[in-house]
């Protein structure tokens, strides 16, 4: 499913959609930490998503439950992935992934909305969960902010969409842990999205995030920038595409301690019955002290220092052959990644060659995507924050 197909333009008086989906896969990573090969199987991204609206669409809601805390507690083998205490594995998301209520309306030709709850912050590009790859990009924590208590005001007029939000800076502590409500409002973000043509959507966004890593506060703060462009509809042989640049500065006070940048490009095309997708990314990853489990790191960097920065250059190819059976959509897939990590700064207390035993890291997955039902909601955008919605017509939750 492409992100574009998830955009809602429905203006019925009341509607409700429900969808369940999951990915079953087996992944081999070679080499991983400690110069070992790992082969594991998972049920990834097991989600139940509900979306409803009433009162001519003026009042809506989005609910997404994510059960990775049950199926992926150890994390998913994922080249270069990091965040929330996991490294080289993608961390499980929280059980309550999204629960957002949206009130929408219009002033003349300007659509407006106010959304609130737990969900995505208007920053960066669409969540990797909605994109064509099972493996997350390294830049997930540079290019998206999610699972926060958030209030979002949005306005949309013609090709321009503006969003502003306030939220809590702390990242989730575990799948079952709620955000720290006392920190609500300590962070903010703004995003502008332009759709100059039905084919293309361009976003630029900024976020100021307070102490994301130390939940009690007092840790490094972040200033984040993102610029991205995506195809909204097929263009020639391209059935989908995304280009993004992201940058995160970590600050102590106003002093910049670290900077991480990312460039990512991905595209999909149809070949006969198959969809072939390719992704390249060049992303800097912070390194922190690993624990006894080499896939986990300390989330409390005493001294507020990191131990190094690794630049990951990763190419990924995914081939899938989607088909439908009654209300179910099924998509077998094969996905292969090649990653090349190098230390960005020297001397570094994290040297990829020493840690992995190699700087050529291969990963291969085979699996099946399964979804039942439909979803009239573009994950991560709410109300008038969904671009290019004609004034007076609400969408996206």
């Amino acid at each position, binding site marked *: 499913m492409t992100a574009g197909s998830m955009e809602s333009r429905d203006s019925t008086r009341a509607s409700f959609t429900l969808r369940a989906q999951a990915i079953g896969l087996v992944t081999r990573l070679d080499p991983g*930490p*400690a*110069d070992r090969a790992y082969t594991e199987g998972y049920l990834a991204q097991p989600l139940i998503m509900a979306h409803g609206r009433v009162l001519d669409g003026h009042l809506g809601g989005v609910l997404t439950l994510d059960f990775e805390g049950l199926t992926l507690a150890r994390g998913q083998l994922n080249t270069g992935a990091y965040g929330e205490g996991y490294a080289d594995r993608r961390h499980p998301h929280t059980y309550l992934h999204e629960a957002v209520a949206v009130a929408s309306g219009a002033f003349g030709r300007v659509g407006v909305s106010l959304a609130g709850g737990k969900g995505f912050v208007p920053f960066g590009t669409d969540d990797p969960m909605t994109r064509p790859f099972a493996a997350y990009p390294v830049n997930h924590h540079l290019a998206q902010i999610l699972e926060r208590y958030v209030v979002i005001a949005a306005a949309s007029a013609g090709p321009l969409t503006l969003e502003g939000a306030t939220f809590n800076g702390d990242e989730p*502590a575990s799948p079952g842990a709620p955000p720290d409500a006392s920190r609500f409002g300590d962070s903010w973000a703004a995003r502008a999205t332009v759709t*100059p*043509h039905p*084919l*293309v959507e361009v976003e630029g966004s900024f976020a100021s995030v307070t102490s994301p890593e*130390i*939940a*009690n*506060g*007092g840790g*490094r703060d972040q200033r984040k920038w993102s*610029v991205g462009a995506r195809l909204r509809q097929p*263009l*020639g042989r391209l059935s989908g595409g995304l*280009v993004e640049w992201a*940058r995160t500065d970590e600050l*102590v*006070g*106003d*002093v*910049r*301690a*670290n*900077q991480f*940048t990312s*460039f990512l*490009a991905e595209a999909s095309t149809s070949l006969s019955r198959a969809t072939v997708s390719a992704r390249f990314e*060049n992303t*800097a990853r912070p390194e922190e*002290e*690993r*624990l*006894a*489990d*080499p896939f986990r790191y*300390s989330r*409390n960097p*005493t*001294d*507020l*220092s*990191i*131990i*190094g*920065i690794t*630049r990951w250059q990763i190419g990924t190819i995914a081939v899938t052959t989607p088909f439908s059976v009654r209300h179910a959509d099924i998509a077998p897939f094969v996905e292969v990644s090649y990653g090349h990590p190098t230390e*960005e*700064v*020297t*001397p*570094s*207390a994290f*040297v990829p060659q*020493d*840690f*992995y*035993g190699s700087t050529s890291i291969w990963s291969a997955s085979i699996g099946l995507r399964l979804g039942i039902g439909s979803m009239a909601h573009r994950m991560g955008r709410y109300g008038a924050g969904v671009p290019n919605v004609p004034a007076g017509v609400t969408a996206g939750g």
Partner: protein
Amino acid sequence: MAFRPRAFHWLLVTLFVALAGCGSDSPTSVKPFTGPSLSVIGHGQTTARYTAELWTRGNVAYTTTWGQRSATAVGNAVYIWNIGANTPVMVDSLIVENATTLGDVQVSDDGKLLVVATERANGSIVIYDLTNPLKPARLTRYQTANTSNGVHTAEVARVDGTLYAFLSIDPPDARLVIVDLSNPENPREVMVRNMGNPFVHDVFVRDGLLFTALWNDGVTIWDVGGGGKGGTIANPVQIGNVRTATWSPSVGDSEAHNVWWFHDVAGGADAKRFAFVGEEAPGTGGSALNSSNGDIHVLDVSDMSAPREVAFYHVDGAGTHNFSVDEERGILYAAYYNAGVRALDVRGDLSSCTDTQKATDGRCDLRKMGRELAAGLANAQTFIWGVHFDGSFVYASDMLSGIWKLTAATRP
């Protein structure tokens, strides 16, 4: 509006070329040191693991290890060195199971116990008997729910004749845990209290007073039996607090890391007037091993209820870490990470200086006061974590290469 796929293509190519090469900052470089040198006497080299803290007693030194240097070499070792000759010689090692970083090490004042902190997962202290200093015999590993987050530092000190370990516990819920070591085979927790923002980093204990380095909350002084405020080791009573300044006005918070309350043997009435605070600010180069920041701050603690900062010492492009003070000669030795070891003359009135020796905020600048005596390893490819003065020599632990033995500084 017409859409031009070719133009879009070139826009993307331009974006890629422009942005793909963006990288990280480079740290500020340290200016070469040109003053007197703490000369290198010997170098005990080890590069299998990253070296952390050190302690010496007699002809034996103990160094701990930190982090993960290779696929199999983690910071779970204590190295034992014979330092009787010029070049320290590694004679043995201890391995602590289920540990990844041993951040702190100390020998008790009577020389009987070696206490090692384990940080990160499985936070604890491991206590060894030093009947044979070259062959420490493990007595116990003390780990409770209050220590399991990780013990960042473990200071061993005596209060009213009883030996205690003061454990600074990592967040979440950073806390100080005090453990009675009267029976070292069976340590007993006597106090636990949440403190620090976001963590309590280190303490200094002397004369029944407890100094806590609380990072953004600065330094707090507690009565634990000697302050006349009714405090006890089980119930410390706060006497005073000070938010120390920062190496850069842009930082905003104190970053108080460690403390040393100086007792100057020749100090007369002002013998106990000053305390030194290390500020450990993160580097700006993206690696714990390639840059550092943070100053030494001098507190006037003549009124413990109202300590105030009166002086500081700054090195461009580098930051301080742990201290050792030669109280006989009035010389402070400071580990300075990428700037080696710095020796400062800390005898006399550190709060009194000329206008030209003051910073704009009125604090005295020890460098401008001519208090910088010497430096060791200042221009070397080292990253100095800890320093220890044993009465004759200065020992420095180098995260990259082991232990260095240096000459001590001399007063002018």
